[in-house]
């Protein structure tokens, strides 16, 4: 069991599935959808087996495999997973089949190929798994950049509204960030002894100045991806134009690559630079929380609103990472998982509403709860998860982040807490304007609004709701996996010590 090459199979399997689905004829869309769904469920099963095989108390990196690729440069196909990566892999594997099921009818009605849509989703899954599983910096960079191509086509070809503009903006922003990272990767290779192996590079001796420049190169790329203010302007456009399923993957998993990258590459490889730039990063994160939340309150487009909320949530994750305590760090990683589930659910529900109404504008809704009560109820639950209601999973992570930050940086913690109030504002107001109050007369004449939650849609939302509830009450299994990895990152790599509680210090 242990020696099975989980990670390389997990990376390649969706890609093979993508090729298979892409080769299916355009005239048989139903077959393409079923093959894609089945394939992604198989990948999910393998991921669950891997989760069970992972030993939380064991070595930091498990499932390690390495195959030579470009010996002239010291590049290998090296895969390994620690707790953080494992959680991200599970998130990806859980979200993709749900997204495929949710997007069952999204690609129809246009002149675009339906098999191509699902093939792009599977190809995207492959690159996402590769990004999280890579333990070789060159391999990470390859997946980081290749990830852009399927998402670009998903937004540009299958999106709505200003989809070309949104797709180009997304691609260019990410590419620019990635190019800065390329310079940093090459610099790291030159200064780190001509190796790309992550483990070896953590031992490399870099001069302070060089380490700071390299940190900045990586950080810019991850800050664009996450996104942190002020590199965030691509996300509302991309999230607003992408089809709902792709948008759920965009904010649910793709953006996590940014914060994962900070945890895996910025902090361990450049610990002194991380501490040097921490105040700057914390400032960006906190500004993001408040600014994005305020912008979210004022949005009239449902999908753009959810995108702005995502930027605000990522501010929290950034605060959690740069507070350099294990509580905050564990909270941040848990936040990544919970945000993926919660905002993924929110985006999918918004997608269902938009598909029924034919418009994403809040002003086109109003009192929809009278027509589609069950869907409105799910919408409410997703909203509650977004604002971190206790009992749902995001509360645990937000609480951990705030506690972990309060002990070392009160100002940041207090300002971030204001973010919770703003979150309540944008979520509750959005729900009220769309599903409560007087019924908008325009709604009753729309056919789609008469159909409440279908069975397929129920199957889509049920696992996410279940996970949110279970993890809201019993997050221990996940925290047990995350904590050792975060502790290792912070204590071994950055050298940060948790502050002793005031009682113990007395």
């Amino acid at each position, binding site marked *: 069991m242990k020696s099975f090459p989980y990670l390389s199979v997990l990376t390649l399997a969706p890609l093979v599935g993508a090729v298979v689905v892409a080769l299916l004829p355009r005239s048989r869309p139903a077959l393409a959808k079923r093959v894609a769904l089945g394939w992604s469920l198989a990948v999910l099963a393998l991921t669950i087996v891997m989760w069970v095989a992972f030993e939380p108390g064991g070595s930091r990196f498990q499932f390690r495999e390495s195959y030579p690729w470009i010996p002239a440069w010291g590049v290998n196909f090296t895969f390994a997973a620690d707790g953080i990566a494992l959680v991200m892999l599970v998130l990806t594997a859980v979200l993709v089949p749900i997204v495929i099921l949710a997007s069952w009818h999204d690609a129809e009605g246009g002149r675009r190929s339906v098999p191509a849509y699902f093939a792009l989703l599977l190809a995207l899954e492959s690159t996402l798994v590769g990004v999280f599983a890579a333990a070789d910096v060159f391999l990470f960079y390859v997946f980081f950049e290749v990830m*852009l191509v399927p998402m670009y086509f998903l937004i540009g070809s299958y999106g709505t509204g200003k989809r070309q503009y949104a797709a180009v903006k997304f691609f260019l922003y990410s590419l620019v960030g990635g*190019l800065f990272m*390329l*310079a940093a990767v090459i610099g790291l290779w030159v200064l780190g002894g001509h190796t790309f192996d992550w483990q070896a590079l953590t031992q490399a001796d870099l001069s302070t100045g060089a380490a700071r420049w390299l940190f900045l190169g990586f950080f810019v790329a991850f800050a664009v991806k996450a996104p942190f203010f002020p590199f965030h302007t691509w996300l509302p456009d991309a999230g607003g134009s992408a089809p709902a399923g792709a948008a759920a993957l965009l904010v649910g998993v793709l953006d996590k690559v940014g914060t994962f990258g900070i945890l895996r590459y910025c902090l361990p490889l450049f610990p002194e630079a991380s501490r040097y730039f921490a105040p700057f990063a914390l400032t960006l994160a906190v500004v993001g929380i408040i600014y994005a939340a305020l912008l979210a309150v004022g949005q009239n487009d449902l999908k753009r609103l959810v995108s702005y909320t995502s930027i605000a949530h990522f501010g929290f994750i950034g605060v959690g990472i740069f507070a350099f305590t294990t509580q905050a760090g564990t909270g941040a990683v848990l936040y990544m998982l919970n945000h993926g589930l919660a905002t993924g659910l929110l985006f999918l529900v918004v997608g269902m509403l938009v598909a029924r109404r034919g418009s994403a504008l809040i002003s086109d809704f109003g009192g929809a709860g009278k027509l589609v009560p069950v869907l409105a109820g799910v919408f409410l639950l997703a909203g509650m998860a977004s604002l971190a209601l206790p009992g749902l999973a995001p509360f645990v992570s937000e609480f951990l982040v705030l506690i972990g930050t309060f002990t070392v940086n009160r100002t940041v913690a207090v300002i971030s807490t204001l973010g919770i109030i703003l979150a309540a504002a944008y979520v509750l107001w959005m729900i009220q304007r769309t599903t409560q109050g007087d019924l908008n007369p325009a709604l009753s004449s729309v056919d789609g609004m008469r159909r409440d939650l279908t069975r397929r849609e129920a199957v889509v939302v049920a696992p996410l709701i279940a996970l949110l509830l279970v993890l809201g009450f019993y997050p221990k299994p996940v925290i047990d996996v995350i904590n050792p990895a975060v502790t290792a990152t912070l204590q071994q790599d950055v050298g940060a010590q948790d502050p002793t509680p005031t009682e113990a210090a007395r």
Partner: protein
Amino acid sequence: MNDRFELPPIDYAALAPMLILFGAACVGVLIEAFVPRSRRQVTQVGVALAALVAALVVIVSQAGKQVTTIGGSVAVDGPALLLQGAIAVLGIVALLLIAERALEPGGAFVAQAAIAAGSGADRQQAAREPGATEVYPLSLFAIGGMMLFVAANDLLTMFVALEVFSLPLYLLCGLARRRRLLSQEAALKYFLLGSFASAFFLFGIALVYGFAGTIDLPDIHAAVQNSANSEVLLFAGLAMISIGLLFKVSAAPFHVWTPDVYQGAPTPVTGFMAACTKVAAFGALLRVLYVSFEGTQWNYKPVLGVIAVLTMLLGAILAVTQTDIKRLLAYSSIANAGYVLVGVLSATREGLSSTMFYLIAYGFTVVAAFAVVTLVRDADGEATHLSRWAGLGRRSPLVSGIFTLFLLAFAGIPLTSGFVSKFAVFAAGLNAQDDLGVWLVIVGVVSSMILAFPYLRVVVLMWLSEPGEATPSVSLPGATTAAALAVGVLATLLLGVVPGPVLDLTNQAAEFLR
């Protein structure tokens, strides 16, 4: 009175590739004279391809050789053989494009260049006459000259080779079947500016001879260390020689000819120039800088560094506003010349091997990209205005997909050869561990960002736009164009996913004979 004139030893095996090509070119001229018109095309293509394949076989069999021959005027060493092989392979691919007659009756070349453009006879020849077959011996002369250019061990041989390969190219640029005035203008511009550049090159040789007393590259190296003559001669000579070479590689500010010539020349010739001329010119530049002028590194590096920066930025910025696909690819080719200069400037073994890898990888991609340009056509010939490419992805997903792959390679997306080659030159630049390298890499990264925009615009046009009435259909490629495309796609993918073997090859070959 009994002094015997000793013939210098001649290593025929080392010279064989060039001799084969020049001989085949002469045979081609004879074919023009004696073979009936109806059978010329087949005969010429057969002779040309056979000669190129034979030359390639001989080059491969010489691997590992390091000799100078003909009294030290030709040096056949690792880089020379590798670049000659690259020129041969790229020449074969380009020749396949030149030989294509399925897209347009009679091919891409004019039937009789002497016919006045725009006249009735001209319209008649454009419609149905088979194209001039002189292009094949001309191409063979050009390829042979390029091979000599990268193997030249003294400056005069280099000059002769420069002229031997440039003059046929000037002619080839003027032989388009359609839009003949544009083509003739391109040929004239190339000829005039090229002659200026060659004149600079020659004058530079004279100045360097004045400084060093010799034109042999290794001897110049010794003279640079030891000569007591005025250094002004050395630097002025080096500057002028560089001007001549930088003109050929389209480095700024000597790049002005490139967009007009690339746009006006028949597209197969454009592909040929974009790939093979770059390989040849950079090969000569590398040899001159690494073998002769290594001692003046710290003097020429800042100047060439500025030129590299200018080239990368100008190529990228000017590409953004282009509306013609051939001009866009021309400016992209200028920017790519800048990236190659980054590798050249690192003046190390890694620099040499990364430069050679870049030239090979870029050559395959660019020839195939121009092959795609030949396929997008309507009744009046090629549709090169970008607006005509809107919605092409809907009409012909395969060809659009292939072109997207090439654009991704130019943009440097991983898993394509473009990424590996960019990584190689930037790594060589940073490896040199000096400030110049760091600045060059930063400018290179910024230039890549700027260049991504026009590439993306073409992708958006092809895939995300609706086809207009003006969108032409993509012609079915003939067998030769299909072969050229297949080679391009394979090379772009293979060199991106498994670049190891070729990287090792360039690394092994990266040792100049001094």
